[in-house]
């Protein structure tokens, strides 16, 4: 007790801590108020005399005695209690309370000791699961010493234990002010509040995202949209603000599209019934959906691919990949074709792609495109080696044969012939080439 005194003085005189005092002249008063608040928050009897004892009860943290004797005591105690059970029972001070474990009655024996313990000693007791009391840590300085001690022994459980006490006995503002300078403790506190579902108490900027995260708990899409709208005002970084805005716009559009498509009776919906609703799907999935069901719609409609592409600033590469997947799935090879067609100033069409044509082939093949379609795109692959390997992989015979012919590689042609069905057109084609005396083979 004596060691706390000088520090107390220092504390009350130091201006640094001034914000904490409710009444500069009367610290007794503030202490009283504080303890009253603490007491009220723990649902004990109004009797002030009991305060200390209840304090011990409240924070003592030790398990049940496991001996069979204490168990039988407890059993009788609880059966006594059950007789007078109410829906919201008050903790009383009749002996039945001792059912909370003999550790508590023991602790009251050396209550005096508990109140004299230093932060170090208190933390030691906590570590060992012995009875302890935090109530005597009244001044901010003492509370912080206690917290620092818990942090010093690296025990997250104890850090949280102390924080729970500080939460009850300090105002939110003061607690946060102090935690800002104590990173380890702050993180424990934030995690604790998150687990308790009390993130609203958090004022840290990091927590913006936690607020945004709340939307995941909202099932109704209308409400979810409105909630996202309310998030738009939060001070996110510029980058994240754009994403949150996108999220809101996306859901808003999806709700409109969903409402109309649910009852849509266009041919495409009959031929390929929707497997799921489009609500809450990612942007690219929405784009795919619109390329699948709403291809060719004018840019003015929300459901058109063009509109989605513009609204969400989708790159050309991404757009082509997605549209390609959707149109290939529908086997609309004409649409696939026109995706890559570009006209030059002379009016000739030429195929151009922001993604490698080997990737295009890959996607077409996965959507079981016929060989003639595949061949066209394999031929567009720039690198001869890559072209050959893709052609081999997907059995585009003509291309393989022509490539070997151009390389004047007789041996490879012979090898390849053996893999083909005898008398198939490809087989005969190789046969003809091999018989062609005009070609100067390199081997």
């Amino acid at each position, binding site marked *: 007790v004596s060691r706390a005194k000088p520090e107390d003085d220092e504390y009350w005189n130091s201006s640094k801590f001034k914000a904490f005092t409710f009444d500069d002249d009367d610290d007794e008063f503030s202490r009283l108020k504080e303890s009253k608040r603490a007491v009220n928050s723990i649902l004990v009897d109004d009797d002030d005399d009991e305060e200390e004892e209840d304090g011990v009860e409240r924070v003592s943290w030790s398990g049940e005695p496991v001996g069979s004797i204490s168990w039988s005591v407890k059993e009788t105690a609880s059966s006594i209690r059950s007789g007078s059970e109410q829906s919201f029972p008050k903790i009383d001070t009749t002996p039945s309370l001792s059912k909370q474990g003999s550790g508590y009655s023991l602790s009251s024996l050396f209550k005096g000791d508990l109140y004299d313990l230093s932060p170090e000693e208190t933390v030691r007791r906590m570590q060992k699961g012995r009875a302890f009391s935090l109530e005597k840590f009244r001044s901010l300085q003492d509370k912080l010493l206690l917290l620092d001690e818990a942090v010093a022994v690296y025990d*997250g459980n104890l850090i949280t234990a102390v924080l729970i006490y500080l939460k009850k006995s300090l105002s939110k503002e003061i607690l946060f002010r102090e935690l800002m300078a104590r990173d380890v403790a702050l993180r424990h506190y934030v995690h604790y509040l998150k687990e308790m579902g009390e993130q609203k108490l958090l004022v840290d900027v990091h927590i913006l995202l936690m607020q945004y995260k709340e939307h995941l708990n909202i099932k109704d899409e209308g409400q979810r949209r409105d909630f996202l709208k309310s998030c738009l005002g939060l001070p996110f970084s510029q980058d994240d603000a754009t994403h949150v805005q996108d999220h809101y716009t996306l859901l808003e559009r999806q709700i409109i599209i969903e409402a109309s498509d649910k009852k849509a009776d266009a041919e495409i919906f009959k031929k390929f019934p929707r497997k799921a609703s489009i609500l809450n799907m990612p942007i690219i999935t929405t784009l795919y959906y619109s390329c699948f069901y709403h291809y060719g719609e004018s840019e003015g409609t929300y459901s058109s691919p063009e509109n989605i592409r513009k609204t969400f600033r989708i790159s050309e590469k991404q757009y082509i990949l997605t549209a390609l997947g959707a149109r290939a799935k529908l086997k609309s090879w004409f649409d696939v074709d026109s995706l890559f067609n570009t006209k030059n100033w002379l009016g000739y069409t030429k195929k151009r792609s922001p993604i490698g044509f080997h990737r295009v082939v890959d996607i077409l093949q996965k959507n079981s495109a016929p060989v003639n379609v595949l061949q066209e795109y394999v031929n567009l692959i720039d690198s001869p080696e890559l072209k050959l390997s893709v052609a081999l992989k997907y059995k585009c015979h003509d291309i393989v044969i022509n490539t070997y012919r151009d390389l004047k590689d007789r041996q490879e042609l012979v090898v390849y012939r053996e893999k083909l069905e005898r008398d198939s057109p490809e087989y005969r084609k190789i046969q003809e080439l091999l018989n062609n005396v005009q070609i100067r083979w390199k081997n």
Partner: protein
Amino acid sequence: MSTIQTEAAVYSAVQSVVGSLHMAHTEWKDAPGLPDFSLLKRLARDQLIFLLEQLPGKKDLFIDADLMSPLDRIANVTILKQHEVDKLYKVELKPIVSSSDQLCFLIRPRIQTVKWISDLVNADKVAGRFRRYKIIFTPQKFYACETVLEEQGVYGDVTTDEWNFYILPLDDDILSLELPEFFRDNFLEGDQRWVTTAGSALRLLQSVYGSFSKVYGIGRCAKMVYESWRELMEDGEQRTRQPEFAKVFLVDRDVDFVTPLCSQVVYEGLVDDLFRIKCGSVEFGPDVTSSDKSIKVMLNSQDKVFSEIRNEHFSNVFGFLSQKAKNLQTAYDKRRGMDIQQMKAFVADELKGLKQEHRLLSLHIGASESMMKKKTKQDFQELLKTEHSLLEGFEIRECITYIEEHINRQVSMIDSLRLLCLLSITENGLLSKDYRSLKAQYLQSYGIEHLLTFANLRQLGLLEEQQAGETLTVMESKVGKLVNDKTVGKLTDAFSSLAKKSNFRALSKRLALVPKSGEEYDLRVPRDMAYVFSGAYIPLSCKLIEQVLERDGWTGMEEVTRMLNGQEFAVTGGSSSSEARSKTDAQRIVLVMFLGGCTFSEISALRFLGKERGCRFIVVTTAITNSSRLLEALLDNSA
């Protein structure tokens, strides 16, 4: 008080069995034998029974979903029934249907679960129903959980206990704390709740198997765990017993994020990546069993086929299995031309073994086939090529394009994230424009709610945007040439407080983690631990262990530890006679504790290292992890 009493019970149980312990391995051969860890299971089971007996009479038992498999490994329903457990339920955080007068909850200390229990109790109260409730927290209780009971007004109505089930032996050389949440809680949330738990696990090992002569470690958490363990030992009784482990190495997962992010290609790792090994067992679906049902199999050293291929590079597995199959055929063929007597002997002595082997063989062949199919489908080769380029720092632009397309095509959300993280760590963060563009595309493809995931990854340093101050590294390395190490150390300290950087490229160079490209690597005859990643990369974590054991400390590795943000330590244990015993076999057993999880590839690498150096490694991990588990723990895209 319960903690103390139950622990006393555990330790007296320890003493009663400890006597028989050394008998098992009096003779060491070339590679030292391993301690018998089944003892840990017995201890855990005995304590559980003891706790169940504290609630006499019939009771229903509610078990946390993630405790069910661990519980299965040490007890079974019969044992539970013997101790008057009537019905078993999984904790689902929903209203319950139970007619029992006594409810017992076997749970991890989680606030959410305790809130659910409090609600049950309060609902019973309103309904005027009287029951007895007991919560058994494992491996320990937390103050915050008890506060929930208090706040909900059910403290006292519910009794609580602790089941100190700290360690589950998964195999001869793998011990797990089965605490996957350790990773997120400690590294992301910065919550140190499990530090003492890890310390207690070490104390348990020390109490049962003897003390250690030397402890090394690296990482903030490792340091704290060591301190906590030391404190616990100082408090407890000192045991002067022959140590069974020579050395202990503690390592934080965040010291090496690269390794768990790489695709696994040794058999056991691959099985884990594709089928998810859970608590030492895996469920093979119809595609593997070539029947219409799934089979659950235990994967450990008991499985003779598995134990031969688990550490092999996948490319060797086919050859091995087909050779095995041929041998098996030959063995079966012996039956031909046997007379009755020979046949009788064959059936009695060999057939059962052959059939067993047959069953295992066809299972692993089925698994290999199915894995091959899956991997071909996802263009695994191309993926591996990108990973290797990233590790090597080669053709980074092409890698970025590949990752971008991966994202654009909405291929596996986790794989995209994994590649992004690998890119960021190996490159010390992404250029601002790359970061923004890749993040935007990721959110478009997989959902904007991944904003939260990105915030988490950033906080952990797994996926970062390079800051303007990046040039510091350049300056730092220049300064390094001019002044002595000490000054640089101070400078680095100052810098590392600004941003924790991975320094992967520099570390890789310094420790020779990535072999020079172009060199042939014969995966059938591995020359170093790099074989676990096709010869492309030696796991950083394992390389550190190798180096420290070789040097008997961190001397000469100052630059490396500095790049790893320091926090390394080496302590010589209390037993002064350790010198004298340095030649005993126990001195050749090294316990490695991974805080935040360890992958099967790392375990394979350590087994390889052990063989090379004539020692054995025992891995203690908070949980088995892999890239998917690691990243899933950081996702925040669902409620």
